[in-house]
C-alpha cells in the first residue's frame, strides 16, 4: 500500500507529460542537429570528391594539426575574443562611472545605449562597411583625413581590418556592459563611501577597495556572457569583411563556414565547428567555476 507515493509519482508523470512536447521540440531542434554535426565530423564528406566519402574516424581532427589556416583562425579567435571583451568591460565601466555623475538625463542615455544592441549584427557589419569605414566617403575616413592622418583602407588592409572588426564588435556590445554596470553601480550603498571619505580615502582608493569588490559579480557575469558572444561571433564580420582580406579576419567560425559551404568540404567543416563548440563549452565551464570559487 503506497497511496502517497503513487500520488507523487502520478504527479511527476503528469508533469513529465506536460513537459514532453517542449522537451521533444528542444531535442529535435538542438540536440539532434548537434549529434548529426558530430557524426558528420567523423566522416569524409567532400562534395567536390563524392567518390571519397565514407567514415573517417578522427582523420578530420588529425588533419587540423597540419593546417596553418586552422591555427591562424584559432589565434584570431583568441585575439578577437580577448580584445573585444577587455575593451567592452573597460569602456563600459568607464562610461558607467561617468554617467553616474550626471544628475539628470540618465534615462535618455540608457535608451540611446540600447540602440546598437538591438540592431542585427549583419546590419551593423554592412553599416560600418558602407558608411563608416569605406575609403573616401566613410565617417572614419573623413575624420582621419580632416585630422591630417590620411585616408586608409580600413577593411582592405590586413592589420587594419582586424582592428576594424574588433572595433565594430566593441561598438555594438559595449552598451551591454555599460547598462549592466551602471545598474549595479547605482545600487551601491552611499554610506560606505561616506565612511571612507571620513577616513580620508582618495578617489582611487575608494574605487579600488570599495567599488571594484562590490561590482565584481556583475563584472564576472558580463565577462562570461560577452566571451560566449565573442566566441560565436559571425554575422558582423561576415558582412564587413567576409573573413578577408586573405584570411586576416577569419575567426574559427568563419573558417568553418567557408570550409563547409564555399569549399563544400562538409566533413572537415563540421569538425571545425565541433572544435569551436568544445572551446566555447570549456571556456564557459572554467569561468563559471572561477565565479563559484571566488564567491
Amino acid at each position: 500500500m503506497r497511496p502517497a507515493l503513487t500520488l507523487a509519482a502520478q504527479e511527476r508523470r503528469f508533469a513529465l507529460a506536460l513537459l514532453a512536447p517542449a522537451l521533444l521540440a528542444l531535442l529535435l531542434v538542438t540536440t539532434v542537429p548537434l549529434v548529426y554535426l558530430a557524426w558528420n565530423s567523423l566522416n569524409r564528406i567532400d562534395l567536390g570528391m563524392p567518390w571519397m566519402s565514407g567514415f573517417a574516424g578522427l582523420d578530420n581532427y588529425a588533419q587540423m594539426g597540419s593546417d596553418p589556416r586552422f591555427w591562424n583562425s584559432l589565434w584570431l579567435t583568441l585575439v578577437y575574443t580577448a580584445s573585444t571583451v577587455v575593451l567592452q568591460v573597460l569602456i563600459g565601466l568607464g562610461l558607467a562611472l561617468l554617467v553616474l555623475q550626471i544628475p539628470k538625463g540618465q534615462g535618455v542615455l540608457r535608451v540611446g545605449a540600447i540602440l546598437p544592441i538591438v540592431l542585427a549584427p549583419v546590419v551593423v557589419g554592412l553599416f560600418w562597411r558602407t558608411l563608416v569605414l569605406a575609403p573616401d566617403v566613410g565617417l572614419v575616413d573623413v575624420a582621419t583625413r580632416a585630422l591630417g592622418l590620411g585616408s586608409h583602407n580600413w577593411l582592405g588592409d590586413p592589420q587594419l581590418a582586424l582592428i576594424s572588426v574588433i572595433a565594430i564588435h566593441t561598438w555594438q556590445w559595449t552598451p551591454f556592459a555599460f547598462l549592466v554596470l551602471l545598474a549595479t553601480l547605482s545600487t551601491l550603498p552611499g554610506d560606505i563611501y561616506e565612511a571612507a571619505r571620513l577616513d580620508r580615502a582618495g578617489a582611487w582608493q575608494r574605487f579600488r577597495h570599495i567599488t571594484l569588490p562590490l561590482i565584481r559579480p556583475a563584472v564576472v557575469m558580463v565577462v562570461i556572457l560577452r566571451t560566449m558572444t565573442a566566441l560565436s561571433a559571425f554575422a558582423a564580420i561576415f558582412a564587413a569583411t567576409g573573413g578577408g582580406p586573405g584570411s586576416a579576419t577569419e575567426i574559427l567560425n568563419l573558417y568553418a563556414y567557408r570550409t563547409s559551404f564555399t569549399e563544400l568540404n562538409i566533413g572537415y567543416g563540421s569538425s571545425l565547428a565541433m572544435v569551436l563548440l568544445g572551446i566555447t563549452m570549456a571556456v564557459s565551464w572554467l569561468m563559471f567555476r572561477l565565479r563559484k570559487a571566488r564567491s
Partner: protein
Amino acid sequence: MNDRLPSTDPSSAARRRLLRQGAALGAAGLAAPWLAGAAHAQEADLAPYRSAKINWRQVEGESIAVAVIPASYFDHLGTLLPQFEALTGIKVRIEKVPPGQIRQKATLDLSSRTGTYGTHAADPMYYPLYVANKWVDPLDRYLDDASLTDPAWFRYDDILKAWRDADSIGGKPYGIPYDGEVTVQVYRKDLYDAKGLKPAATLDELVANAKALHDPANRLYGLALRGFAGAGQNMYIYPSLLKGFGGGWFRGKDVVVNSPEAVQALEWYVNTLSQYAPPAVRNWNWPDIADAFSQGTLGCYIDAHSSAAVITNPEKSKVAGKIGYARWPKGPRDKCVTSIWNWGFPINAALPEKAKKATWLFITWATSAETQARTSWKSAGAAKRSGINRLSLWKSPEFADAMKGAGDNFIQAALDSLEQDTDVEWRPRVPQWPAIGETLATGIQAALVGQKKPKAALDEAQARIAQLMKG
C-alpha cells in the same frame, strides 16, 4: 452619431458596397480590351516558336521553378514568361537569388535531391562538380530526341562555341548557355587620343599606357582590375594573366598553382595594381570599377564587355561617348586569353520525367534565337542586353544597331575575343573547383594587399590544394 459602430450605419455600408461594385466594373472595363488585345498579340508572338516541328504542349499543366540572379537580362526573360506559358501550358516560377548565394542554394537543392529548381542559372565552373555527383542530366539525349528538339529550328551549333564547350564535360553538354560575357580592354578613347596612345597589344604596353595617364593628384588612375577576393572576382582576372604568361593549371593530373609562370603572373598583377590603380582596388569588384570609370577617374580597365551598360548610361556616366574597346593584351608568350563566362541552364536529375521535359522546353525556349532577340534589341528600355548566346545574332545588323551607343569597336573586340581568345581550360575544370577557386582567391588577395609575397602566397595555396585533392 455613433463613431464606434460604423457597421450599424446603413448609409455607410451601402456606400461601401456601391464603391466596391464601381471599382469592379471599372477594373473589368479597363481589363477587357487589354485582355483581348493581349490574346491577339500573343498569336503573332508565338508564330516564330510554332515553326519548330515539336509539340510544345506535350507536358501541358506541369509547373517548374527556375532560380536566376537579379539581373536585367533575366528580368527581360521574366517579362516574356506569359508567352512561354501560352505556348506550352507550363507554369514557370522564377526565383531571384543574389549571385553570392545562387551556387550554394543550387548545390543544396541538388545534393539533397529535393528537386526544388528544375533548372538554375549555373556557373560553368560547377559542371564538373555536378557531373561527378550525377546531379544534372547529360543534355545530348534531349538534343537528339526529335520529339523534344527540332535541330533545324533550335540550331544548337549556332550558340557560341566557347560557351558550349564551357558547359560541356567530356564532349557532352550539361548546360545550355543563356547569357555570357568576355573580358576586354575598356579605355578612355579621348585621353588615349590626346596623348597619342593606342589600345595595348601587350601587357607591357598596357602598363606603359597606364603610366602615361596615371595622375593621382588629379584623381586619374592608370588602370584597374578586379582585386576583391573570390572565385568570381580576382580569380576572374588572374587566370587570363596566368595563361598570358604561358602558365597552365595541370602537371599530369595534379593541379599545380605555383609554377614559375604563375608566380610571374601574380607578380605582374600585384605590381601593376599597386603602381597604377586606385588604392581601394583590392576591395573592388566590377561594379566598383565601372563606377570609378564612369566618374572619369580611370584611364583603362579590363573586365566584362557587358559592363558597357553601366559606363555608357548617360544619366550616371560622365564618360559616355568617350570609350573604346580592344581585346586582352598579349602576355609574354604571345597569347591573349579572355574569360569564358556564361550563365547556362542544366536539368536537375532529381526531377520526375515529365518535369524534366517541361524544363527542357523552357530551356530551348529561353536559349532560342527568337527569345534571345526579344530579350535584347527587341526588348523595351534603353539598355539592351549584350550577352546574347548566338553567333548569327552577334553578326546581325540589328545587334550592331542596338550596340552602337556602347563605344568604339565594341562588337568587334568582343567577337574577336570570343572567337579567338578563349580557352576552355581557362580555369581548372575539376569537381574540387569551389575549394580550389576559393583557396587561390584568398592567396591572391593576400599577395595583392601585401600580406604575403606572391611566391609565398601561391606556395601556401599549393600546399592547401594538394591537401584538398589528396585521395
